[in-house]
Each structure stands twice: as C-alpha cells, then as structure tokens.
C-alpha cells in the first residue's frame, strides 16, 4: 500500500504541473499554485483569497471543495497533494524528531480565516501578509521559477518567502507532515468535512483494541475507545494513508466509512 501511495503521489505531482494543457477555470482541491509556469488547475485558496479581496464568495469553488471533502475528504492530502508528498520525503531525512503541541492543529483554521480571507478583505491581496504571498508551495512552484526566468524584483520579499519555506522544510524533517497538521489552510477546509467523508477508514468488529493503529498514525488520530466506527479522536486530521490498515493484526480497518 505504501508503494502504491508513493506512485499515486508521484503521478499527481507530475500531472498537476506537467503543463500539457491549462484548465484554470477549474480548481483542484490540493495545494498547487496556479502561478506555476506549467500548472494545469487553479488553486482554490488563491481563488478564495482573490474573491475575498473583492468581497465576493466563489460559490463554484466552495461547492467543489465541499463535494471533494464529502466524498474523499483529506484522502486528497494523503494521496494527491504534492507538498504533502514532499514533506513525507523530508521526514525520512535523519534529523531530530519532535512532537508538536495538540493545540497547534487549530492554527491552520486561523491561517485560513486570517491570511486567506481576512487579509484580502480588510487589507488587500497586495499585502505581504496575504497567504499566497507567503505560501511555501507558491514559493517552490512560482516565486523561484519566475525569479529565475524574469529576475527577482523584490529581493526582500523573496528572501522572506524562502525563509518561511526553509523553516517549514526543517520542521517537516523533525515532525511528520508538520505543515499539514499545523498550518495548511486547505487541509483546514477539507478537515471540516472529513468527519462525514465517504472515503474514510473505519474500524470493524474485528478490532481487538490493541492500539497499533494509534501508534502508527502520522496524523495522531485515535479510534473510539469504547465503540467501533469512525475514528473519534481528531478524525478531521485523518489523511487516509492507510498505515493503520497495514499495521492492524486483525485486518479490522476498512476504507469505506
């Protein structure tokens, strides 16, 4: 399963940025900057931020995100998001491993409300605090390529973006999927619907409460202690990586919740 997921992640990362065609009328609900020279789809966060700057609500984008959240939820984070894939590779680098406090997972909701929506509404999308101007994915896929192509005109801001990117990369080396857990505003949007997602790991009556799924979970979700069903502790964080299914000694985890 791990090898399959690796292949799927690689395929999605290539597909999003292969540049064979451009379909920017459609947002694909993963963090992938549409300012990338070869991007295919639009980034939902970029569109939400820009609509917010005009005081408008992008209904098609929000509807699409909700549909994606209700059908596959954060499965997209685990299987399709290129930056999640990069973070998983970074975590394999030998480095000091550490935990982050439980409350840090709420920061991403603040990032969405503050930097994606409030800054464009109350300041301007031109503001340096606007999420797209700080986004690590935008730095990798857009800021750096365009700086190489056209030359950097704002060295200070580029340096700030690169600093944020490197800080997140170092933190991702120490804590698995640090950005997804603590900072990703798209993950925050999808996690709202994760509890109701159709594609979601669920424990069956075969479970013997050994806790092996708890220990292996990269997103620190936990099953209900006293009843079977969807994961009760932090279910919104589950990215359906299925490492719990792989580790389960009684094959008690099924994917379709």
């Amino acid at each position: 399963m791990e090898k399959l997921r690796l292949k799927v992640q690689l395929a999605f990362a290539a597909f999003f940025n292969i540049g064979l065609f451009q379909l920017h009328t459609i947002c694909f609900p993963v963090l992938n900057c549409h300012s990338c020279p070869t991007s295919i789809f639009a980034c939902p966060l970029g569109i939400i931020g820009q609509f917010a700057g005009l005081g408008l609500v992008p209904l098609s984008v929000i509807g699409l995100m909700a549909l994606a959240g209700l059908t596959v939820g954060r499965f997209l984070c685990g299987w399709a998001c290129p930056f999640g894939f990069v973070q998983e590779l970074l975590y394999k680098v030998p480095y000091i491993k550490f935990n982050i406090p439980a409350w840090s997972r709420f920061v991403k909701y603040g990032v969405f409300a503050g930097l994606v929506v409030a800054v464009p509404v109350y300041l301007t999308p031109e503001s340096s605090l606007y999420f797209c101007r700080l986004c690590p994915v935008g730095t990798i896929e857009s800021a750096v390529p365009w700086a190489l192509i056209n030359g950097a005109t704002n060295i200070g801001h580029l340096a700030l973006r690169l600093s944020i990117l490197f800080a997140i990369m170092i933190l991702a080396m120490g804590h698995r999927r640090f950005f997804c857990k603590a900072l990703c505003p798209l993950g925050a949007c999808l996690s709202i619907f994760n509890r109701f997602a159709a594609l979601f790991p669920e424990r069956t009556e075969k479970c013997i409460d050994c806790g092996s799924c708890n220990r292996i979970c990269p997103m620190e979700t936990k099953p209900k202690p006293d009843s079977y069903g969807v994961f009760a502790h932090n279910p919104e964080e589950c990215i359906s990586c299925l490492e719990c299914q792989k580790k389960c000694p009684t094959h008690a985890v099924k994917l379709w919740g």
Partner: protein
Amino acid sequence: MVRKVFWIVLATLSLATSIYGGFFREFLVYDNLEKFDKLKNVGITIKIPGYESSDNKFEAQSQWFTEPEVVNAMTFEGIGRYKDGKLTSNYPDLRMLKGRLPCPT
C-alpha cells in the same frame, strides 16, 4: 443513519452550489485594458470575453463573466474594476513577482 442523512443533505447543497456558481452565476466586471495594452505591446495576447484586441484605443468596457471565467481570469493579472469611468480597484494580482508573464502553457 443520521450521518448518512446529513451527508446527503450536505452533498446536495454542495452540488447545488457548484452548479449555480459554475453555470448560472455571472459578474459584471470591467476590463483593465491598460494592463492588456502593456502585455500586448510585448507580444502577449490574453483572450478574455469582452476584450476586443482590434481596438486601437483602449477604453474601459464592461462585460458579464461567468464565475469560471472570472476564476480563469484571476489566474492572470487580468481584469480590473471601474466605477464611474475611473479605475477603483484591480483584481488582486496573483503574480508573485513583478514582470511575471502569463503562463506560457
């Protein structure tokens, strides 16, 4: 059972929102032709409904856009807004760097 009913209600609302936003919703926006002019001068043409590339003199003009068209336009430095003939605000510029050209693909 409650979860399934809630899921169906949410999915129906989401689908309705997507269909309305994607196929029926329209915006009255104004082309920021000054920017198009600059791009045209360096040999780049952006095709957005309402923009007449044959116009010799660029003037503010309005056009109804569907939401997906606006989403598409927002991925470029594209459309601006005028009020009473005066540019009041630009659509947010997603260009990360000054001098960025539209996606060559």
